[in-house]
């Protein structure tokens, strides 16, 4: 699904070269749930930016779902981001002026779906995260956990090949964090490929694979759970994941 081979990312300032990634190699198979950990400044954010095609890299090869990304034009990268990747950000990154519906709808518009197709997908995705009844709410009317679930719905709506989560529970209290993690786990059980950057060792331990980045390189990796189940479900889309009801949180108006 994701193949990185000897990727280097160098930030150049006037006098100093910083190697954010140094000969970084990683292979993620379809259906895997990979946690990326590491101390701050280790390069895990850079990794996620490169993996998500948000940032370019200086050396190495990167293949995403069979497409080699080096040398692609900006528009082609946008297309790939839109079709193959679902992002979940630490601070949700919802657009505050837009309703929940419009937020989830936004990436679908860039895909060029028809209005009816978009509506179907938005409703389905919000169903999955248990927020189907809040279509018209503004993000500010929801709790942090709910907002993150909207963000997850937004990531799912485009039926991406891979979900990239950047500290998805970083801004949430433990109860809400729990709920978000449950959704991610459910999605993974349904066959979704997920890469999650986290600094929470507990979360890292729960997933199928945990890789650690130190000084821009993969330090070592430990397997905490057997991989056998994923092997059968290669290539399946996250959309196939059956939805599971999530308990609603009560939000003060």
């Amino acid at each position, binding site marked *: 699904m994701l193949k990185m081979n000897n990727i280097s990312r160098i930030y150049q300032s006037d006098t100093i070269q910083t190697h954010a990634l140094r000969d970084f190699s990683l292979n993620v198979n379809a259906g895997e749930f990979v946690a990326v950990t590491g101390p701050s400044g280790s390069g895990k954010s850079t990794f996620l930016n490169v993996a998500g095609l948000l940032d370019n890299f200086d050396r190495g090869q990167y293949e995403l779902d069979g497409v080699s990304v080096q040398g692609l034009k900006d528009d082609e990268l946008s297309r790939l981001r839109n079709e193959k990747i679902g992002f979940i950000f630490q601070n949700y990154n919802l657009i505050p*002026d837009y309703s929940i519906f*419009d937020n989830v709808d936004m990436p679908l518009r860039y895909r060029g779906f028809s209005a009816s197709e978009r509506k179907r997908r938005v409703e389905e995705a919000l169903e999955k995260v248990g927020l189907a009844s809040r279509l018209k709410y503004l993000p500010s009317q929801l709790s942090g956990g709910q907002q993150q679930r909207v963000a997850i719905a937004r990531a799912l709506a485009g039926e991406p090949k891979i979900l990239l989560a950047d500290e998805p529970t970083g801004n949430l209290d433990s109860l809400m964090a729990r709920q978000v993690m449950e959704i991610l786990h459910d999605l993974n059980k349904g066959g979704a490929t997920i890469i999650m950057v986290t600094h929470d060792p507990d979360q890292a331990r729960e997933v199928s694979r945990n890789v650690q980045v130190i000084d821009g390189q993969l330090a070592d990796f430990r397997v905490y759970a057997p991989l056998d189940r994923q092997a059968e479900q290669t290539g399946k889309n996250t959309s196939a994941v059956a939805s599971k009801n999530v308990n609603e949180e009560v939000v003060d108006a």
Partner: protein
Amino acid sequence: MNFATLNIKGLIKSLLLRKFTTGLLILQLAITLGLLVNSAILAFDTREKMSQPTGLDDENILIVSTHPTSGSYRDLDYYRSIVNEDLSKLNQLPGVNSVSITNQLPIRGRGMLSNTHDIDNPEQEKADKYLKDVKYTLAGEHLAEAMGFTIIEGRFLNKSDELDFDSEAKNNIVITESLKKGLYGDESAIGRETNNGIIVGVIKDIMLDPTLPRDKQYGLFMNTIMKYIFIGRFYVINVEPGQMANVRNQVSDTILAVQAERDIFDVFTMSEHLKNFYRDDQGLSDLFLLLCGLMIFVTAISSYAYSQFHISRQKKYIGIRRALGARKQDILLYVLTENWLVYTIGCALGLVMALGFNILLSQYISLSKPDMMLFLLASAVIFVAGTLATWIPAVKTSNIPPVIATRTV
């Protein structure tokens, strides 16, 4: 361009969230449009006025306005002899078709006027107020050729119409077509007698006073200029086409060579005379266009500042859009559409402003009503200027890298 990627409802909502700045810009756009439309009206009105047919051979008529400076001219016989010599010398210039003299020019407000009615029907003046102010021109007998009048009935004035200076006999006069209609309707006017003399000819209308209606260009001509030579201020010279520059260069010297104690105020063609009549209209219309230029400039700055300000606040969200798969051109379209939406509202309000401003202006000056074509044209100008002004911020915005999305503030 793919407008389907846009969420118009969302755009409107985001505009509503910055009511103040958007409102200011919309007001500015509306005022600018209002001024633009009315300035264009003024400009077109002026152009139309200046391109009205004068009924004269505008391009080929040269006029000299002159006045003696010496006391010797108080002897009118001396005055006349000099004028006669002037006329004959001017006539000899190569390229000159004919020369005449008159007390006043067409294309002028008021001037020397006289009430005119059929000798037996003074009541006419009560029915038609324009008959009270008929342009009263003292003409030399060659004025018709010099001006290029078209005779439609009878003849123009000739030597026999010039009475002895102390004669009390009735004058022969030539009148304009509209005056004939005003006095006698469709009947022939030849031989009829007015309070100002007996009609011997009718000429096709010329533009005597542009401030009066086209069909009220009442004027009469009589051959008494030599009698009242002291008001014969204008020499009218009809010039062979293409010879204007030549003749123009020589007239002053020719006149002064006859007798030097003269002031030559001006030498001008009839088309310049026409232009000069509308000089103030032209000036005002130019001033308005200048103001339009300034206004578009200021409004363009505002459009620029508006998008710039908006974008500086939206940077993060643009990054998110990019991260979620928006292409650069999607963002460009997004920013431009947002502005176009504002311009559309501004122009719609501008329609009201244009009408209101038109009504307000017409309290002071005369101008036509706005029409839809002009409004659309002005709107197009606003859109083009606005798009140009927001182009740089829009391109800058589309260059916001998607990686901004993962940065935590």
